[in-house]
């Protein structure tokens, strides 16, 4: 088990390094004009521009830049932000934002887990009856209709009918984060309901459930003690990943409601050539993704002792 964990972690580090190297090289392919604001582009002469680029080390040969970057990484030095917040260390820029994203994300995750699983259970109990059909229709709607459209509908309903604020404001974070949370939760409720229903129905068709019925167990006990517990194992596998990914925030929702979170930071930092922030974000996203999958496997193993990791041979 320990050997397997170490092997897998080492592999992940290599993957993260490859990813960040690729992104590093891609970023260096961008025209250097992006380094300046439009105002600076107009004002500066070529020499001034070159001076600035030279000072930032952007005119060195690519391998030199790459090795300097690796060297800094070894010291856990991610550099400073340049355009988003001039001169502020990257960790601080990200730190301020990810708290906001995470608060929204975790709240919506908790809500959707409770509601989603409950809806899934109810759908299973009322299979092929009205409630089940309504639930399925909801799932289809959320999955098929583009997020932008359904968010717009939520926004119209929320602000016109319920009078909720349509934009996030940091002075009034309570009410103004209701709509973003609803939008985030809407998608994941459908996800949890869909899979809970499917796994529970699979489980219901198994022989041991028949035995439990014959034994005279009440339907409620069977549902909670056996069916739900077994059906929850595959769902639990994705929980750590979804929890970790809340740190990353949702680009569309955050842009849509002007939440100053992590999502918009990614596109902003790329288009404004803030390379240090992009690299830090990429490392963050990639390691969170990989860590999430790993923790999911571990969690699944804890919940269901029949599953052992090492025998899977590391090929996912």
């Amino acid at each position, binding site marked *: 088990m320990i050997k397997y964990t170490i092997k897998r972690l080492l592999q992940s580090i290599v*993957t*993260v390094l*490859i*990813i960040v190297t*690729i*992104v590093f090289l*891609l*970023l260096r*392919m*961008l025209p250097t004009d*992006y380094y300046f604001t439009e105002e600076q582009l107009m004002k500066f002469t070529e020499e001034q521009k070159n001076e600035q680029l030279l000072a930032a080390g952007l005119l060195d040969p690519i391998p030199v830049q790459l090795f300097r970057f690796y060297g800094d990484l070894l010291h856990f030095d991610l550099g400073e932000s340049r355009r988003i917040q001039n001169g502020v260390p990257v960790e601080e820029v990200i730190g301020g934002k990810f708290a906001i994203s995470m608060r929204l994300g975790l709240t919506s995750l908790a809500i959707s887990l409770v509601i989603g699983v409950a809806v899934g259970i109810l759908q299973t109990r009322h299979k092929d009856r009205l409630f089940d059909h309504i639930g399925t229709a909801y799932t*289809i*709607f959320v*999955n*098929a*209709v*583009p*997020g*932008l*459209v359904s968010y*717009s*509908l939520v*926004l*119209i309903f929320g*602000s*016109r009918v319920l009078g909720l604020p*349509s934009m996030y404001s940091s002075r009034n974070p309570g009410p103004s984060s209701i709509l973003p949370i609803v939008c985030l939760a809407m998608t994941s409720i459908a996800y949890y309901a869909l899979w809970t229903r499917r796994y529970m129905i699979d489980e219901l068709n198994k022989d041991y459930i028949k035995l439990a019925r014959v034994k005279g167990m009440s339907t409620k006990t069977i549902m909670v003690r056996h069916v739900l517990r077994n059906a929850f194992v595959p769902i639990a596998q994705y929980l750590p990943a979804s929890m970790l990914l809340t740190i*990353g925030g949702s*680009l*569309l929702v955050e*842009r*849509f409601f002007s939440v100053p979170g992590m999502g918009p930071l*990614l*596109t902003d930092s*790329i*288009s404004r050539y803030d390379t240090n922030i*992009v690299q830090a*974000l*990429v490392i963050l*996203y*990639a390691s969170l*993704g*990989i860590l999430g999958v790993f923790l999911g496997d571990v969690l699944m193993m804890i919940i269901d002792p029949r599953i052992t990791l090492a025998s899977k041979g590391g*090929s*996912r």
Partner: protein
Amino acid sequence: MEDQNKVLDQKLENEDELFTFVEYSPEAAEMIGYSDYSYWKSVFQNFLKKKSAVVLSIIFFGLVIFSFIALAIGKYNYAELVTDSSKAFISPNSEYWFGTDNIGRDYWCQVWYASQTSIKLALIVAIGECALGITIGCLWGYVRKLDRFFTELYNIIHNVPTILYMTLIALLIGQSFTIMAVSLICFGWLVMARNVRNLVLMYRDREFNLASRTLGTPIHRILIKNILPQLISVIILRLALSIPGTIGMESTLSYLGLGLDINTPSLGILLRNARSYFLDYPYLLVFPAVIVSLITVTFYLIGNAFSDASDPRNHV
């Protein structure tokens, strides 16, 4: 009782006649068992049994045809739209059937033009994704030596938000319909390839393939004749689901300013333009939202129905 005995007696009398030699007839000797089972015929028969799916497909084709008619009968031509702020925000009336947008352009032709763009993009991307995904998936699953390489490649692309690559592409190469389609295909094959790969792994070492290999069947023939037919229902499902996915992705990207260029109206661009106004002028949201939801939900349902129909286990 007596009647029955009589019948039995008669039977016994005729017994000798029952055991006479049959004369040799060449036609009878050539006769073989025949059933008029044809795979695709059964698929369509099964599909036609699902009334809701059939109705939806008719609606979809109707919509596509109508989008051409709508552009033709509209009072304004998209290419000749002019900005006229005195005509901004006119609610739908007999002159402007869908009203006008914030700078006084006819909304009817914009909406239909945008739906055409979105459908076209979605179809192209779905087919491209499918072709690339199946090819890579087959190689990934069948050729053991490539497994490691493709798994790494998958991890590298999958663990970084697609938005990052999309932003870089938009900045490096530019924004146009072709670039958008190609880059969506380049990052969209992952899911299809992984699905195909897992199934190919499942079928690769079955007895019938072992037999085929022993008889010297070339690999491409094994893949096409023995393995791919087993995957049809999964492939069709992914193909159909990727259409709502692409439309959603396109709208997100265009909303973020990373998608199509601003002069090609697409759904995302319409919604982006409408974002600041649709709270006061809901028709700006309603028309594109209804059309796009119709398209995506239809494809979602047709895809599910067709993939059920194409699973040979559901055939007679």
